[in-house]
């Protein structure tokens, strides 16, 4: 039976020791949920009797009060004893809101659960209309819910399962970074000694993380870094871009990856940061250069990836920084004289942003271009990979095959409609303010 106890001592044989505990818990839960067999729960007819059925089992479905104060259906993913009490009633439950994205999964207390709504229905057979298959209601629901999780289409089933097992439960729920305290979205593989801490405090500039506020305050007295530890390669107004070499600033690179993983689902920290460059976007004031977002890039990519991971920190989202980062990555590609494409799989938000960028850039060219143009030329002008250009134009239905050849539709009205749908451009990149030479490996 999967159950995760809140650890109190930072046990550190090898990381494997602590992890083994966690993964068996996950596997235990998987066994009970996989295969579509749902647990039958007791009737709630006798209202007093449910008290004796605490703690709730993993897999229980119940209504839970969310931050909007309304009840929403959830499924219990994990449970743990509350560290302050040992009575069987005092468990905490990690729940997944079945209507929402996994990002919103969180630990809740018993009082948030409406125990009268603990599911009791019989697992009867129904017919799935789409496939005309007969299955139990629970099986059907499971399939439907799987489709809620977007952004995983490019992972095969096995990796997806593995990924979900590994990242099932968020370990750090909140972080403090500079001016803001931010709720996290996803699990991040911090060193095991940090797993007992629900909140981490990050130094805004060197990104070292600590478990208590006093530790951060003590750190700030000695930390003299006021900007990312790399070269400033772009400055326009208060916006600056710093290039950090993962090899030269390994600890910073690792810290940044730990931090970013909290907000990126599919980022992998499997390999070291040596082979990456980090482009950190900052807003500068008299307190320093404050990171608002970043993207990472392989020093040498065989698949011509010009971007590995991209993130705008939550407090700064929806302000155009993400689009700036994408545009910036292509400006670097142009300077290198190479075409580029973002590493796959793209997140849901990522794909949206890229489609917007490609649409804006390509359609602006098509509006102005007089004569014929080839996809290759478009690629050379924009540093966008031909495949991406094709997929964009095709998804907008701007490429037709007529009379034995392909043509591009560039009707201004049509283009404007698409441009409007694609949304505004973000902050502009002023190429004249970019002072940068492409990375060269020594030797």
């Amino acid at each position: 039976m999967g159950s995760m106890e809140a650890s109190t001592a930072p046990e550190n044989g090898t990381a494997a020791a602590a992890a083994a505990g966690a993964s068996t818990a996950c596997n235990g839960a998987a066994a009970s949920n996989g295969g579509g067999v749902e647990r039958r729960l007791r009737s709630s007819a006798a209202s007093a009797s449910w008290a004796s059925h605490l703690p709730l089992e993993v897999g229980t479905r119940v209504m839970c009060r969310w931050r909007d104060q309304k009840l929403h259906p959830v499924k219990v993913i994990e449970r743990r004893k509350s560290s302050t009490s040992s009575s069987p009633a005092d468990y905490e439950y990690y729940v997944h809101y079945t209507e929402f994205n996994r990002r919103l999964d969180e630990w809740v207390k018993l009082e948030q659960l409406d125990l009268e709504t603990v599911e009791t229905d019989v697992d009867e057979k129904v017919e799935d209309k789409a496939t005309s298959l007969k299955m139990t209601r629970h099986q059907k629901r499971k399939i439907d819910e799987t489709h809620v999780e977007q952004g995983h289409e490019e992972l095969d089933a096995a990796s997806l399962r593995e990924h979900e097992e590994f990242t099932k439960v968020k370990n750090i729920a909140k972080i403090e970074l500079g001016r803001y305290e931010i709720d996290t979205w996803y699990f991040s593989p911090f060193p095991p000694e940090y797993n007992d801490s629900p909140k981490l405090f990050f130094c805004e500039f060197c990104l070292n993380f600590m478990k208590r506020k006093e530790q951060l305050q003590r750190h700030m007295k000695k930390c003299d870094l006021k900007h990312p530890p790399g070269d400033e390669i772009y400055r326009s107004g208060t916006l600056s871009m710093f290039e950090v070499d993962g090899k030269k600033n390994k600890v910073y690179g690792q810290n940044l990856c730990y931090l970013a993983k909290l907000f990126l689902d599919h980022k992998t920290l499997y390999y070291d940061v040596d082979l990456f460059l980090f482009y950190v976007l900052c807003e500068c004031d008299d307190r320093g250069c404050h990171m608002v977002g970043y993207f990472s890039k392989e020093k040498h990519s065989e698949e011509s990836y010009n971007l590995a991971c991209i993130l705008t920190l939550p407090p700064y989202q929806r302000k155009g920084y993400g689009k700036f980062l994408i545009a910036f990555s292509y400006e670097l590609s142009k300077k290198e004289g190479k075409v580029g494409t973002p590493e796959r799989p793209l997140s849901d938000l990522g794909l949206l942003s890229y489609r917007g960028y490609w649409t804006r850039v390509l359609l602006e060219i098509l509006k102005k271009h007089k004569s014929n143009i080839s996809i290759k030329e478009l690629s050379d002008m924009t540093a966008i990979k031909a495949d991406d250009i094709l997929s964009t134009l095709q998804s907008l239905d701007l490429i037709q095959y007529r009379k034995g050849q392909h043509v591009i539709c560039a009707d201004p009205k049509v283009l404007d409609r698409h441009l409007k749908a694609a949304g505004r451009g973000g902050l502009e990149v002023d190429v004249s303010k970019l002072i940068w030479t492409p990375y060269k490996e020594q030797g």
Partner: protein
Amino acid sequence: MAMSRLSFRPRPLDIHKKLPILKSAREFEDDDPTAAAVAVARAGVLLRQSAPELTAATTATEGEGNPTPTKKNIQEIPTPQFDAVGTYERDYTRTFAQPTCYIRGRGARAEIGEFVEYDLDNEDEDWLEDFNNERKNLNPEKLEVLLFKLEILDHKARERAGAITPTFIGPVPVLLQLDAAMEALQFLSVRYGVFQAVYSYWKDKRERWQKPILRRLQPPPPVNDTNPYNVFRPREKAHRLHTRRMQRRENNIQSFEKLRMVRRNLDQAKALMDALVKREETKREAMECEVNLQRIQMKYKHEAQLVDEGTALSGFQQVSSRFGSSEDDYADSDDTTTEQPYIRPPVFRPRFADHKLSVIPTLRIKRERELKRRPQQNGWVFKRDPEEPVLLFTRPLDPEKLVAAGIKPPPDPPIENGATMPPFRCRGRIGRGGRIIFDRWNPLLQTPIGQETSYYAVARGQWRGVSGAWAVARGRHQHGNTLAVAAAAA
């Protein structure tokens, strides 16, 4: 239908081929109304589909957002919650002055200076609170420094012992011993009892953790470790073609760091050299000033005395130097009454400071007692003025020592026809670096030694770098002036 069969099976698109751009949708319609209609319809559908997607995303509010959950058919991208931190203004000071030029990175802090990379964690803080126990045995910053230094020292010890592994293959041992640590860290001035307690605590923590407590020093997991919770494995180096050049030149982290160190050392050396050059130039200037001063003083003084005195004086005082010099000098200068056993050439017996030349000496002229016995060439004598400076590199030779060393002064050359004196004489002195120099040429008067015609010339006997001087080899047969020979012929 006007569509040809080819429309159903388009050839793959050639990205290099220029495609015509049709600026009007009607052009589609003219040719193929069905296809155009489909295209327009699809475009419309696409727009309708994407709009709610985007609307859902954009209606999620900023700040302390309360995203409205939508039904599961439409993809919802939630915005995360965030709050402002109350103590921000206090914790982060407004001390950043952005330079006008773009900022250059200076490399990782760990390598550059004395930044204490370690931060106390919960365990450390709790232990410290217990340890201090209401008193103030140890402050947190000091504990932080101690733990940091212990980690670094232990890492170095493991390096020396060859116990550093590139990846994590097993528990990392503690090799640093208490006394070694105490010795290395005594500059921190920690009381023994406190230090011992910290060391024990640190060692115990290390043994529990089985790895360094400073994250930078923890070895990464091996490449074949499949545990997904372990991160940052070292990437295998891409195999590059091994050219001869590559084989000879190891280009890796170590050589880069070495080059960095070399560069730093060179910069320091350069700074040092610059300072040295400046110092020597200043010294030379000071020296030239001294020389000029002496010349002027001498000229003034002795020309005056020439008028005053006519006969030899009978009792010189030897004036001791005003500065520290070797014992020899002191012995000599104290010896004011005894006759010097040796006869010295008719020169001053100047004094000067120690050879280190770290101080510009205030030079003193020391009177030469023997001068009174010497047959004066010009029939004059002089009185010494204790204030007169002594020239450098004009230290007199000690005839006894010369004899003891078996060194004979060079002989006077034979007297030529018609002359009364040899064309030059040799005057010994101790020159730069303690060399024994016998001058035969007076550079100031541009005359051979022994031929000076004025007191001034004699007085300005010798100094450094005199042309025509040579160092004397042992065993060379010489004969100087009669007095010198008498002394040397031992």
